[in-house]
C-alpha cells in the first residue's frame, strides 16, 4: 500500500483568503460573522453567518460568472498547487484524480433558478458548467478519475477518504481532494426551518449554546504518493494516515444519542492508520454548537480520548457544510505544525452535562498525530487521521 502524503493545501473561508491568513486569524481569535449580505431572508428573524467577503475572491483571475462554489474551489486548488511548487499545466494528462465534496456544487446551478426559466441546456451541460470537480479537472487537464461526493456535511471528509484510497491502491499518483460550498437562500432558510441556528455567534460546547451558524468556503489538498513527491522534489507537509466512516442508521437529522456511528468511524480510522487512541495528541471536533451534537461528541471524546485536548473551530468559520471537514483538516494540520491549539471561540461557560470540555484558551500540544471528525445529515460520521511532517518513524 502506498502512503498518502500531503503535497500542498489551499483554504479560503471567513477566516482568511489563504491557509496562512486563516491560521493567523485563528490564533488571533478573529470571528468574521455578520448577517447575510448577498440574499434576503423572508423569515422574521435573521441569524449570523460566516461569509467569505468578495475581497477574498476578487483578486483571483477566475471568471465572476462562475458560481461562488467553483471560484472558491479553483482558488484553493491554485494555492495547493503553488505550495507544491507546481504550475497549472504541470499535472496535465497525468494519472491525477479529482475528488471533491459539495452540496451546492451538485445542483447544476438550479439553486437560484426556476423550472420555467431553465435554459435550453440539458442538465448535464448545466452540471458541466457549475460543478467544481469538472472545472478543476478541465482547468488542470487531468486524466484521472473524477468524483463528486454529496454526503451532506461530511461530503468533503469522505471525498478526502476516497482520494486517499485511490493513492493507496495505486489508482492515482496524486489527487486533488477537498470540499466546497457556498451560502444560498435555500440552505439558510432550510436550516432556519429546522430551528438549529443560533441567533448569536455560535457557542460550541458552551452551557448556553443554542445552535450553529452557517459558513462557506473551500479547502483543497493535493494528496500524492511518496514516489510522486520524490520525483518532483516535493517535501510533504504531512500525511493522511487513516479514514473511517459509519452511519448512524437511526434518524435523518439528529445524531445518534449513543454516538455509536461516530465511535465506529473513529475505530475504523485509527485501525486503518495502525494507531492506538493514546497516540492521538488532540481532536478537532465537529462541534457545531447544537445541543445534541456537542453532547454526544463530548461523551465519545471522554470515552475514547480521555484527557486529550479537543477544540471546535466552528466559532471561527461557521458551518461550511461540504467544506467543513476539509477546512478543519487544513486547520488541524496547521495546529499540529505549530504545536498549539487556539481557544474554542464562543466557549466560555462549561456545560455541567458534558463529560469533557474543549480548550478555552490557547493550549500547547505535544505530538504529531491528530483526529478531525465530521457528522452529517443522514447520520454520516467521517473521521480523518492526520499526521504532521514528523509523524513517520
Amino acid at each position, binding site marked *: 500500500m502506498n502512503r498518502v502524503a500531503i503535497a500542498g493545501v489551499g483554504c479560503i473561508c471567513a477566516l482568511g483568503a489563504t491557509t496562512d491568513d486563516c491560521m493567523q486569524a485563528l490564533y488571533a481569535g478573529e470571528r468574521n460573522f455578520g448577517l447575510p449580505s448577498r440574499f434576503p431572508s423572508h423569515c422574521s428573524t435573521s441569524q449570523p453567518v460566516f461569509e467569505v467577503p468578495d475581497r477574498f475572491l476578487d483578486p483571483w483571475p477566475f471568471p465572476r460568472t462562475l458560481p461562488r462554489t467553483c471560484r472558491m474551489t479553483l482558488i484553493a486548488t491554485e494555492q495547493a498547487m503553488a505550495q507544491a511548487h507546481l504550475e497549472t499545466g504541470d499535472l496535465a494528462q497525468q494519472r491525477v484524480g479529482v475528488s471533491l465534496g459539495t452540496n451546492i456544487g451538485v445542483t447544476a446551478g438550479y439553486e437560484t433558478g426556476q423550472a*420555467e426559466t431553465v435554459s435550453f441546456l440539458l442538465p448535464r451541460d448545466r452540471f458541466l458548467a457549475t460543478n467544481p470537480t469538472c472545472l478543476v479537472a478541465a482547468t488542470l487537464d487531468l486524466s484521472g478519475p473524477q468524483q463528486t461526493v454529496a454526503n451532506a456535511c461530511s461530503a468533503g471528509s469522505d471525498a478526502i477518504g476516497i482520494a486517499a484510497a485511490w493513492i493507496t491502491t495505486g489508482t492515482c499518483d496524486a489527487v486533488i481532494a477537498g470540499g466546497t460550498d457556498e451560502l444560498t437562500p*435555500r440552505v439558510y432558510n432550510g436550516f432556519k426551518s429546522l430551528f438549529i441556528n443560533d441567533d448569536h455567534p455560535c457557542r460550541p460546547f458552551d452551557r448556553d449554546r443554542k445552535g450553529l451558524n452557517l459558513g462557506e468556503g473551500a479547502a483543497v489538498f493535493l494528496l500524492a504518493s511518496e514516489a510522486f513527491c520524490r520525483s518532483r522534489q516535493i517535501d510533504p507537509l504531512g500525511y493522511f494516515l487513516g479514514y473511517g466512516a459509519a452511519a448512524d442508521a437511526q434518524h435523518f437529522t439528529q445524531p445518534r444519542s449513543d454516538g455509536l456511528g461516530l465511535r*465506529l468511524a473513529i475505530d475504523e480510522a485509527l485501525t486503518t492508520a495502525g494507531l492506538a487512541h493514546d497516540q492521538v495528541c488532540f481532536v478537532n471536533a465537529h462541534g457545531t454548537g447544537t445541543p445534541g451534537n456537542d453532547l454526544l461528541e463530548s461523551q465519545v471524546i471522554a470515552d475514547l480520548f480521555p484527557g486529550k485536548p479537543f477544540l471546535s473551530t466552528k466559532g471561527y468559520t461557521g458551518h461550511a457544510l461540504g467544506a467543513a471537514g476539509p477546512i478543519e483538516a487544513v486547520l488541524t494540520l496547521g495546529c499540529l505544525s505549530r504545536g498549539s491549539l487556539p481557544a474554542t471561540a464562543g466557549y466560555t461557560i462549561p456545560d455541567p452535562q458534558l463529560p469533557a470540555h474543549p480548550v478555552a484558551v490557547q493550549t500547547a500540544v505535544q505530538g504529531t498525530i491528530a483526529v478531525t471528525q465530521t457528522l452529517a*445529515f443522514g447520520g454520516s460520521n467521517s473521521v480523518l487521521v492526520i499526521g504532521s511532517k514528523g509523524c513517520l518513524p
Partner: protein
Amino acid sequence: MKVAIRGIGVVGGFGSGLPALEKALDGRRIAPTDISIPTREGAILVPCLTADTGPLADYIPTRVLRRMDHYIRLGLLAAFGAMTEAGILDKSRRGRLGIIVATGSGATGNNYNFQHPYEDMEEICGSPIRFSNSVHNAAAAYISIALAEMGPNHSITHDDLSFPAALMTAVTWLQQRRVDAVLVGGVDALSHAHAYAWHAHRQARRVVKNLREAQKQIPMAGEGACFFVLKATGTDSATCPVIRETALGRICKGPLPRPMGDYYILGEGGLAATRADYGKWLLPGARATCYAHVYGDMAIDSAFDTAIAALSLRNNRIYAAGSVSQPVQERELLADRSVVCLKLGVGNTFGWTLFD
C-alpha cells in the same frame, strides 16, 4: 479485483423487478405518462417513463413511508430488491455492508418544492421535512436507516458518470476489505426541471430534424433506480456475473484507454451528438447495443446497462436493440464473449465496466 454481482433490484418505467425488465427487453411496450409542467406560457405535457413505487409497501409499512418522497422511495425499492435477491435482507446474514448511492439529479425535485415558497414570498417558513429531503444523500440515508446498517454510507453526484464512479468506489472498498459486501446503485427521479430541459432540448432538435427523426433518436425522459449487492468473488459465486475491471477517467491526448470487449452496451441515451464519440471506442468487429428506450433518458442509465449486462451473462444471451453501428437485431447467444458497459460523460469523462 474481480467482484461478483450477488443481487440485483430494479424499478423503472418498465415496472419493478428483474422479470419486468426482461419483458421490456423482450419487446413489451412501455406506456409513457404525460407529466404536466407549468410554464409562463401555460402548462405543457411531456411524455415520460415514470416509475411506480407501490411494491415498496411489501417491505415498509405505509405509515413509515409518509415522510419519504418519490426519490427516496425509488432508491429503497430497488435496494430492497437487490438485498432480497442476494439473500441478505436479514441483518444477521450480511456482515459489514457499505452503501453507495449514485444520483445524477439527486433530490432536485424536492429542492424546488422547498425553495419555491421563498421565491414566491408566499410563506415565511418552509417545511423542515422538505428541506431535509432536499439533500442529495437522502436516499442513501433512508436506505441505511431502513436496513439498520451502520457501515459506510456514501452518495455520489457526478451527472452521467455518477454510477461508474460509485461502482469504482464499491470495488475499491472491497479491495481494501473495508466491508464484506457493498450495496451500490443509482437512483434518479424525474423533476419538472429535468422533464422541461429534456422537452426543450427535443424541441430544439425538431427545428433541424423532423419530429419522427427526433423522437427516434432521443428516448423519453425516464426515472428509476437500480441496485446491486457486490462481493469479492469466491467459491460460492461460481454462477454469478462477475465484474472483471472498472475504469474511470478523462479523455486527454493519446490513445483511448479502450477495454477489450466483444459486446458493448453503450450508455449513449440515443443522442446522435455523442454517437460518433462512442464509435471511436469500439474495437474492430465488436458489436454494440443501446437500451435507453427501455428505461428512458436519465443520468444513472449506466446502472441499468450494468443490470442488463448481468442479465445477459446469467441468461447467456444478448437482448436485441437497434440504432447503433453493427446493431444486435435479435437475441444472440453470448457464449464466452466478454461484455463491456461504456459511458461517456460530461467534460470528456468516461467510465467502463468489463464483465466476465
